[in-house]
């Protein structure tokens, strides 16, 4: 029996269209980034990469990712645990709140933080009295990045943990397991792959975030410029090769992320089949 919609003509048209669109909209731009970066050969690429400001942008980007990922890892696990293992008034509301960073444009998020924590903002004025400056400095950039990326881990975990139910955890508790043993030996092994997946997504977004970070950065060269901001700055300076070098770096990270993600998905699917 032939499946619905599986006529040879439909098939050919759909496959051609999908391939064409993917190539046109996804593959060509990605390839052109690398082409532009190496347009004048390897030497200018290398020169741009070892540029002081670019190196500082790389370091700052890594720093932001390094702080954001662990924070959101812990936060996401706690949140997912809370939402799936306990029932309390406002649980559904909390679950909706998790999605706010996805729903709000990053620029708006950046603006809100600027208004709240800036020198004249009502939290910021308190902080500036204590001589703490968050905005136009890396702590503020970390803060908005955490905000923008905080749903990733929780969103990966919640559906999985909901589907798994809590019978295993209950079994572990009746056997005398304390909270930490319970998490480490029973819950963690079951959510491990989803957790890694969430971390990868968090990391990718933390590195690539532009809008929110741009709002609170103040663009001080060598101090508050991340790689995405550096791309923008170099491009405005008519340094096309420079801009594309930084862009190529970001794109390379993206490609690596995608490959890791693909491998993980393949891995979980195989495990899923084995257990089914």
């Amino acid at each position, binding site marked *: 029996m032939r499946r619905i919609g599986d006529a040879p003509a439909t098939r050919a048209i759909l496959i051609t269209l999908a391939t064409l669109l993917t190539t046109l909209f996804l593959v060509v731009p990605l390839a052109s980034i690398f082409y532009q970066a190496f347009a004048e050969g390897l030497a200018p690429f290398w020169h741009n990469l070892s540029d002081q400001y670019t190196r500082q942008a790389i370091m700052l980007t890594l720093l932001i990712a390094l702080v954001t990922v662990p924070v959101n890892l812990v936060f996401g696990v706690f949140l997912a645990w809370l939402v799936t293992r306990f029932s309390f008034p406002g649980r559904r509301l909390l679950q909706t709140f998790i999605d706010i960073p996805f729903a709000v444009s990053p620029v708006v998020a950046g603006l809100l933080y600027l208004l709240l924590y800036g020198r004249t903002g009502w939290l910021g004025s308190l902080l500036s009295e204590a001589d703490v400056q968050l905005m136009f400095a890396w702590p503020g950039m970390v803060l908005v990045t955490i905000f923008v990326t905080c749903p990733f881990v929780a969103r990966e975990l919640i559906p999985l943990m909901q589907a798994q139910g809590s019978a295993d955890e*209950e079994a572990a508790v009746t056997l005398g397991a304390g909270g930490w043993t319970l998490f480490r*030996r029973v819950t963690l092994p079951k959510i491990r792959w989803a957790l890694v997946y969430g971390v990868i997504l968090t990391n990718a977004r933390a590195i690539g975030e532009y809008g929110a970070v741009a709002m609170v950065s103040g663009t001080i060269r060598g101090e508050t410029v991340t790689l995405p901001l550096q791309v923008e700055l170099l491009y405005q300076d008519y340094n096309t090769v420079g801009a594309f070098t930084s862009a190529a770096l970001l794109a390379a990270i993206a490609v690596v992320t995608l490959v890791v993600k693909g491998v993980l998905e393949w891995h979980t699917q195989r495990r899923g089949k084995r257990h089914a």
Partner: protein
Amino acid sequence: MSIRVHNVSRRFGATTALEPLSLDIAAGEMVGLLGPSGSGKTTLLRIIAGLETPDSGTIHFGDRDVTRVHVRKRRVGFVFQHYALFHHMSVFENVAFGLRARPAAERPDNDEIKRRVRHLLERVKLDSMAERLPAQLSGGQQQRVALARALAVEPEVLLLDEPFGALDTRVRVELRRWLRHLHEEFGFTSVFVTHDQEEALELSDRVVVMSDGRIEQVEAPATLYRSPANRFVFSFLGETNRFEGEFHHGRLVNGEAWISVDARPGAADEVLMRPHELVVTTEPDEMAHLPARVDAISPVGSDVRLELSAEWMRHPWQVSLAHHEHERLGLERGSHCWLRPTRLHRFERS
């Protein structure tokens, strides 16, 4: 260890899962909680375990009030409906889990853990499977791992939630016998939940019949079957045939059908019969006049079951008779026959 449930109740939002109820279970006893789904039997079991908190009432294990004691500290063995085995751990590690989870001061050393797990696995005849993952075992084997795992922490109370629900009949019968043996050997007090009356009657020292969050009756199986306390218990314990009619001069009459009764059967004019409490005859007699037609004949084990219908029946009746009796009568599908009850049950309508 004895278990004392006193005045325990539980609500979930607007629904009442348990009305305030009390139950005493003696040390070493094996008690089955029997009831339809939604009767509150699992809630009661989970409250005894400490997995659920009662809204009111107290739970005692022996002299110890455990109402506020965390499940971790209650030292109960709990076997879950779908076993809840740790799928990423070997059978051995599953059974060892409770021992390894103990605080360092109480934890037996590695050799001792190995010895005890080995011993338990031998008891449940799974010593050759120690290194397998749960997914590589059959349902019955997984159930045995779950039992061994619960017994590894040497609980004085073993609680089982629908322990054999997901297994096929043959495995179920075997596991029941085997649970009996374990119970005798280890001497724990045991409470299990089931919706299968046969299972409850076969395994329990006493059966607790529940419905709508209430305890209907607590009784030893033989007594329970012989003298059910009310209509619900009667109909839940087995197949029921019901005759409804109007009381006229010592007879309960429904159309052309009637049964002689010695007195008006309570407010509801009905009598109930089990399938084996009816005799199939070729003509009516002075006690009853119940014509019926044979709709289906199915030989089940030592009996032949007949499904019968008639104008005066609201639902088809079930009658069971011995094979030789069936052969003597020579009934076929569509045959007409007469029924004579050997025993009538009457209850007040609840």
